C-alpha cells in the first residue's frame, strides 16, 4: 500500500477561549506503531476524541486511507477501521465478557456471520488470558482486566486499520501490561494493524513505538524516536515547566 494511512491536518478545537488543539497535523503510515506523548493537559485526549468522532472539529480534516472521515458519526468511523479505547476502561458491565467481544463484531457487520465472530472471540480470549472469565459479567473484572477486555473488543472489528489506545497501561499491574503488549505486537506483526498509543509509560513506549509524536499545549512540538525527542529542549522544558507551575 502506498501513501499514509491516517492524515490529520490542521485539526483545531476550542473550548470557550481555550485552544485545546491548535492545528494539529499527524500522519501515520500503514502498519506503523506510533506513540503520542506529552504532559498532562497537552490536548492528547481531545485530539483522540476528534479523530474518532466524539468531538467536532473547529477546523482541519481527517482522512483514513485517503477517504475523508470528518463529520462522520463515531460509529461509522469505527466501522471504517479507526477504533479507540478510553482512558478509564469502558466495558458493558452487565454483559458477559464474551458478549462484550461479540458486540463490535456484530455491529461492524461481517459476511462471515456469527460463527466467525465466536471463533474470533475465542481466539482473543485465549491471547488475552481472559478465557476463564468468558461467561462472567464484565462487572466482576478488575481494573486491569477491564482495560484488557476494552482493548480486545476493538480487535473484534474486522476492518480495524488504525487502533488508537488512550492510556492503556495506566493503573494496571505488570503482568497484565505484558499481556496487552503481547497482544499489540501480535496484531501489528501478523495482521499489519497500525496503532496510535497515548501513554506516559516511557519504557513501554520506547519498546513499542519506533516513532513518537509529542504534543505540548495543544500543538505538535516534536516528532521522531523517543530518544531523539526526549533530547529536544522544548520537550524537556514542557515536562519541567508543568512540574514547576
Amino acid at each position, binding site marked *: 500500500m502506498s501513501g499514509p494511512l491516517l492524515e490529520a491536518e490542521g485539526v483545531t478545537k476550542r473550548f470557550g477561549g481555550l485552544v485545546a488543539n491548535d492545528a494539529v497535523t499527524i500522519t501515520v503510515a500503514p502498519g506503523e506503531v506510533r506513540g503520542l506523548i506529552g504532559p498532562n493537559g497537552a490536548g492528547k*485526549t481531545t485530539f483522540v*476524541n476528534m479523530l474518532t468522532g*466524539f468531538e467536532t472539529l473547529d477546523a482541519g480534516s481527517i482522512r483514513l486511507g485517503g477517504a475523508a472521515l470528518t463529520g462522520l458519526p463515531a460509529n461509522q468511523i469505527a466501522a471504517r477501521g479507526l477504533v479507540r479505547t*478510553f482512558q478509564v476502561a469502558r466495558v458493558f458491565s452487565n454483559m458477559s465478557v464474551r458478549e462484550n467481544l461479540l458486540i463490535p463484531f456484530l455491529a461492524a457487520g461481517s459476511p462471515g456471520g456469527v460463527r466467525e465472530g465466536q471463533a474470533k472471540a475465542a481466539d482473543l480470549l485465549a491471547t488475552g488470558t481472559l478465557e476463564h472469565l468468558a461467561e462472567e459479567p464484565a462487572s466482576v473484572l478488575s481494573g486491569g482486566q477491564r482495560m484488557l477486555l476494552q482493548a480486545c473488543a476493538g480487535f473484534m472489528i474486522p476492518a480495524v486499520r488504525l487502533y488508537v489506545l488512550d492510556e492503556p497501561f495506566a493503573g494496571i499491574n505488570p503482568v497484565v501490561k505484558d499481556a496487552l503488549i503481547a497482544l499489540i505486537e501480535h496484531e501489528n506483526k501478523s495482521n499489519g494493524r497500525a496503532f496510535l498509543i497515548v501513554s506516559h509509560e516511557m519504557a513501554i513506549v520506547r519498546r513499542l513505538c519506533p516513532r513518537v509524536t509529542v504534543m505540548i499545549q495543544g500543538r505538535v512540538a516534536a516528532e521522531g524516536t523517543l530518544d531523539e525527542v526526549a533530547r529536544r529542549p522544548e520537550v524537556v522544558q514542557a515536562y519541567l515547566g508543568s512540574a514547576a507551575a
Partner: protein
Amino acid sequence: MTPETGWLPHASRHLGAAKGWTVIFSAELLVQTVLSGLMVGVLYALMALGITFIYSIVKTINWAMGEFYMIGSYIQFVAVHYLLGARWWWLAAIISAAGTFLVGLILEPILIKPMYARPMQRRDDYATVVTIALLLLLRSLAVALGGPNQYRPESDLPVVWIGPLPQEGARVAAFVCALLALAVFWIVIKKTWVGLALRAAAQNRVAVQTSGVDVYRLDAIAFAIGVALAGLAGALLAPLFMVFPTNGAVTTVKGFEIIVIGGLGSIPGALVGGLLLGLAESLGAAFISSPYQNVYGFLLVIVVLIVRPDGLFGERGREA
C-alpha cells in the same frame, strides 16, 4: 358584539374548534396576565429549586415533591385556622416550612438512605419506585384522613392595586415571601458551613465523606431543605389555590417543567425557568386557548429541549 375596549382597541376572533366562543385581546389584559404569571412563576421556581437541590446532593428525583407541597398547605391551614389566625400567616408559613423540613428529615433515612447505606445494584430504580410509592402513599393518606372537604387558611390581606390592575394580597405576599426564601436559601448555601458541605457534596460525594462529614446526615438535611421549599410554596399558595389532597400534583408538574427549561442543578435556571413558564401559561391561556393552558408549558419544555438539550442554564457535563 361590543365588549369593553381596554387601553387598546380590542380584537376578537373565533376559534375553529369552538364556534362562537370568544377570545378578547387587550393591552390591559396583557399586562395583568404577565404580572400574575410572573408572581406565580416565582412560587413554582421554589418547587423547582427544591427538586434540583435534592437531585444535586442525593442524586434522586423526588417524585413525591408535590406531596410535601400538600403537607405544607395542610400545616398552614391548621396553623392559621386553629392556632394563630389570619394575621399571623407569615409565622404559620415558617412553621409549615419547618414542619415539612422535619417530615423530610424523618422520611429520608427510612426511604432514601438504604440506597447508599446498603449494597445495591440499581439505585436509580429503587429511588424512583420508592418516591413514586411515597407520592401515592401521602396523597391517599391525605384523602383518607382529610375527608371530602377542601380548606383554605383565612387571609385578610387586601387586594393590591398595581396601577389599574388588581392583585390578590395573598398572591403579592406569597411572591415577596418566595423571593425572601430564595435569598435566605442563597445565604445558607453560600455563607454557612452546612452550605459549603452541601455544595461540596453536589460535586463529589466521596470526598465529602473523606473530609469527615457524615454524608448520610447531610443527605437527610439536603432532602429536608428541598422538601421544606416545597412545603413553603404550599403554605404560601394555600390561600390562593386551596388545601386538598391532590393540590401538589400540578405544582410538581410545573417544578419539573422549570427544571428542564432552566437546567437541572442551576439556581438561576430555576428562577428564570419559573418566570418563563408562568408567562407562557398565562399568555397562552389568555390569547390562544384556555383549556390547553397546561400544554403551553410542555410545548415550551419541548422547544427548549430541542434547542438546548440541557436547559437554558444547564452545564453539559463532559462525558468522556
